[in-house]
């Protein structure tokens, strides 16, 4: 009896909004525009089968001789042109009469139409204006009276439960149903048929199922409120559209990934080492450590150097083994999660029934009648109008014909913009490279001493420059995109995403090169800790710059654009820049897990703060895009980028580090070994010696994983399975399109027969 329906329990899962609506085939050219030709084919059924449409059009155009006949046919099909005889025949079609759920409602027609209507349909029908409705209504009313007897007799022939089910599903008023029931079941005794003649277990199962359903519905609001930021995201999605929503959903995904990472490393690495510290901390804590990661932090749980290479708690917990296997395990788990999400996203885009979210269905089934609070109702209206506008924008996306000159000009503008962006990326990368190698030969120390800053501040220069590049260049890209004047907002976002991606990939690439090539050769005391500190600095500086930019920059930009540029609308949320920022931070975290196990915690805090800040800034400074567009594949794209350059790049980097680079001699769990991988091998050998049962594991490893033949076989089998599945999906699609064609042909047949019937009856 809960009529305080909460906002959370009552909506269609909005996550499906962002991705589950495949308007077109997903190829890596998401700029595919749907043909608008369906609007010219009224005979085409709801499914937007584009190929079929062009087929039908060509068929129609080829049969020009029949066109006059077609036109006549169509006029015959208008109901006001039907003669009474036709109507009578049609009304007695099997699909219209005895089917109970197609009978007309008898309720208030009974009060408004008197019985003389019953005799009307056969004569003088053409005199009345809306003759067809009254005809069919009157016919059905008569039919209904006869139907009453028919219904009663049909119920009597059935078993009790069947009869009750059929009675309940009749679209009649309750009073009529009670009458029918009385007549139909009058021979049986008065008690309800729910109670009798039903075996105990059915009764019990019904009871259990209803109780379960009640429990579920009452628990649902609780579960929804557990889903992080559910209500905030609902508000955002309703007001700003699916593009912005996909950014925030992506942020939430990354948050959970980092949480998982943090929990695993915390449990297996940080916690044991925290309980058994190898030595006490030497340095004091001063504020600058939060930024540079040196000093107090350099010899702490934060970085690789702190971890011991022996065993803890007596002889029970080997740190090197734990380190190696934990990192491997986390990367493996993240790999599996990403592949799973990627395949799910791709699956949604390749769905067989392409058009299960067409406009008509949306209009009639989107309003959730359970929603009762005023605020939720308003939000729901907003959401529906945003969705409808987005779908409309996709429908009217026609390219205007451009002249040759205009096309050439556009091409030149595009080329210029791309060249400018690529050159800027190249310059930025070169700058970072030279700075990291310190080829500029700046003497920072003297400058810092002159200003009385601590020496360690020198280390901040690189991260400051990188963050500066990450701040300024995306602004430059936005300028280029504005100059290029793309027509659809979707295209604009995709182009921006690609350019930002190039920038981030080059920056991270050059930094990784620097870390893996030059630093180990530099002869530092503990190079892994140093790399960890660099990563930490990059992350923290990025965080600070983002905070400052979000709080001040977006605010100032809005003020600037509204007062000086005199634009009436607030600026639009920049999805591309923000998403690539997230991916950049996540890549740094993943690379850094090996060198600084606490880095996921830093990233976690950063993401939580970022969510609330971005949300606030969005509501204050930004507005929904004037041209709403459907971001059906945004989430898939983001996960794709997260998987392919980001995660795979990280894995390659880490494998290279583990396999090839010599760990430092004095610190960390892998000291005095040639490679970290060797440490892993040693640990496995120790484990086998300690627990001989595990020898079979290493045997399995040697036989299967190390064996190239097995790997070839396994990949061959996987490829075949993928091929078969692709063929099955293809076949299903073909069958669906054939069935659609069949339905269409049936419709045509029906129209043809009606026209012929008309002719015959004349």
């Amino acid at each position, binding site marked *: 009896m809960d009529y305080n329906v909460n906002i959370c329990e009552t909506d269609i899962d909005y996550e499906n909004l962002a991705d589950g609506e495949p308007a077109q085939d997903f190829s890596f050219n998401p700029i595919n525009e749907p043909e608008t030709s369906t609007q010219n084919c009224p005979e085409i059924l709801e499914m937007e089968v584009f190929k079929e449409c062009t087929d039908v059009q060509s068929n129609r155009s080829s049969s020009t001789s029949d066109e006059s006949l077609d036109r006549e046919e169509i006029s015959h099909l208008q109901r006001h042109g039907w003669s009474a005889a036709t109507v009578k025949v049609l009304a007695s079609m099997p699909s219209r009469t005895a089917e109970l759920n197609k009978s007309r409602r008898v309720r208030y027609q009974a009060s408004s139409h008197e019985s003389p209507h019953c005799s009307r349909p056969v004569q003088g029908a053409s005199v009345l204006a809306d003759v067809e409705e009254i005809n069919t209504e009157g016919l059905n009313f008569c039919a209904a009276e006869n139907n009453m007897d028919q219904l009663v007799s049909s119920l009597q022939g059935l078993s009790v439960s069947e009869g009750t089910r059929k009675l309940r*599903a009749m679209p009649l*008023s309750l009073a009529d149903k009670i009458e029918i029931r009385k007549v139909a079941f009058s021979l049986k005794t008065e*008690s309800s048929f729910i109670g009798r003649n039903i075996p105990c277990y059915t009764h019990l199962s019904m009871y259990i199922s209803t109780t379960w359903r009640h429990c579920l519905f009452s628990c649902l609001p609780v579960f929804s409120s557990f889903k992080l930021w559910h209500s905030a995201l609902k508000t955002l999605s309703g007001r700003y559209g699916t593009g912005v929503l996909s950014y925030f959903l992506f942020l939430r995904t990354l948050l959970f990934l980092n949480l998982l990472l943090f929990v695993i490393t915390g449990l297996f690495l940080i916690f044991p080492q925290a309980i058994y510290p190898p030595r006490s901390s030497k340095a004091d804590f001063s504020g600058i450590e939060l930024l540079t990661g040196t000093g107090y932090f350099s010899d702490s749980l934060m970085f690789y150097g702190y971890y011991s290479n022996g065993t803890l708690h007596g002889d029970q917990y080997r740190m090197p083994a734990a380190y190696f296997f934990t990192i491997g395990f986390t990367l493996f788990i993240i790999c599996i999660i990403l592949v799973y999400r990627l395949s799910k996203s791709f699956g949604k885009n390749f769905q067989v029934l392409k058009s299960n979210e067409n406009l008509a269905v949306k*209009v009639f089934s989107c309003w959730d009648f*359970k929603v009762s609070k005023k605020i939720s109702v308003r939000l729901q209206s907003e959401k529906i109008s945003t969705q409808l506008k987005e779908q*409309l924008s996709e429908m009217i996306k026609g390219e205007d014909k451009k002249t040759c000159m205009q096309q050439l000009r556009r091409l030149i503008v595009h080329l210029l913009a791309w060249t400018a962006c690529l050159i800027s990326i190249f310059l930025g990368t070169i700058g970072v490279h030279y700075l990291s190698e310190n080829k500029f030969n700046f003497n920072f120390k003297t400058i810092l001493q002159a200003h009385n800053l601590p020496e360690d501040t020198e280390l901040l220069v690189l991260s400051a420059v990188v963050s500066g590049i990450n701040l300024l260049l995306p602004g430059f890209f936005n300028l280029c995109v504005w100059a290029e004047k793309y027509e659809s907002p979707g295209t604009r976002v995709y182009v921006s995403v690609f350019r930002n991606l190039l920038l981030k990939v080059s920056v991270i690439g050059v930094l990784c090169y620097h870390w893996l090539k030059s630093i180990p050769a530099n002869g530092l005391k503990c190079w892994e800790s140093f790399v960890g500190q660099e990563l930490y600095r990059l992350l923290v500086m990025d965080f600070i710059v983002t905070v400052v930019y979000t709080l001040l920059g977006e605010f100032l930009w809005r003020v600037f654009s509204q007062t000086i540029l005199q634009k009436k609308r607030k600026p639009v949320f920049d999805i591309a820049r923000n998403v690539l920022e997230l991916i950049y931070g996540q890549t740094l975290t993943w690379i850094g897990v090996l060198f600084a196990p606490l880095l996921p915690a830093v990233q976690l805090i950063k993401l939580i703060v970022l969510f609330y800040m971005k949300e606030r800034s969005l509501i204050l400074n930004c507005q929904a895009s004037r041209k709403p567009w459907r971001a059906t594949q945004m989430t898939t794209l983001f996960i794709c980028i997260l998987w392919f350059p980001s995660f795979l790049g990280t894995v390659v980097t880490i494998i290279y580090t583990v396999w090839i680079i010599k760990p430092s001699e004095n610190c960390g769990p892998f000291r005095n070994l040639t490679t970290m991988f060797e440490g892993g091998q040693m640990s496995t050998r120790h484990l086998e010696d300690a627990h001989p049962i595990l020898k079979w594991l290493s045997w399995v490893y040697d036989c299967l994983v190390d064996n190239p033949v097995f790997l070839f076989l396994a990949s061959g089998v996987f490829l075949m399975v993928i091929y078969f599945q692709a063929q099955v999906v293809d076949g299903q699609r073909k069958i669906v399109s054939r069935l659609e064609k069949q339905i269409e042909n049936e419709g045509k047949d029906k129209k043809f027969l009606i026209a012929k019937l008309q002719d015959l009856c004349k």
Partner: protein
Amino acid sequence: MGNKQTIFTAQQLDAYQDCTYFTRKEILRLFYRYRDLAPQLVPLDYTNHPDVKLPYELIGSMPELKDNPFRQRIAEVFSEDGEGNMTLDDFLDMFSVLSEMAPRDLKAYYAFKIYDFNNDDFICKSDLEKTLNKLTRNELTEDEVRMVCEKVIDEADLDNDGRLSLEDFQHMIVRAPDFLSTFHIRI
């Protein structure tokens, strides 16, 4: 369970139970909800079938319906007189169809009636426009409303008469996976 209530006869309750998707308990609970709307009008004894009709204003003030933009249509469709004034039978019928147990065809039938504003057994363009304006609280421009209506009729109209009949509507609802969960009021 013990039938200690005196509102309905046992036969009445059985009849209600067989003709709606509610159990005895729920029917009684619904009766009390109905009565709470106007305690002075609704007697506590329905054994002799009193003819009591609650005016639409009371029905429309129920918490489940008060902010629903379609509440007037819902009441009109389910009421005997077509004006929204409901007897207890109408009330039970309405919530029975809108409960989670009602089958899709039944719900589609009544949904069609609700969206058919002019009661001509077809959803024509003006009905669609009214529906859209109610759904979006008049936030769409006229052009957009017109385009949406055209597209909807294009997609769903199977017999090419420029409006949706019940068959068209039911055919379309078959492919709406959320229809059953959205066309549902919990009481």
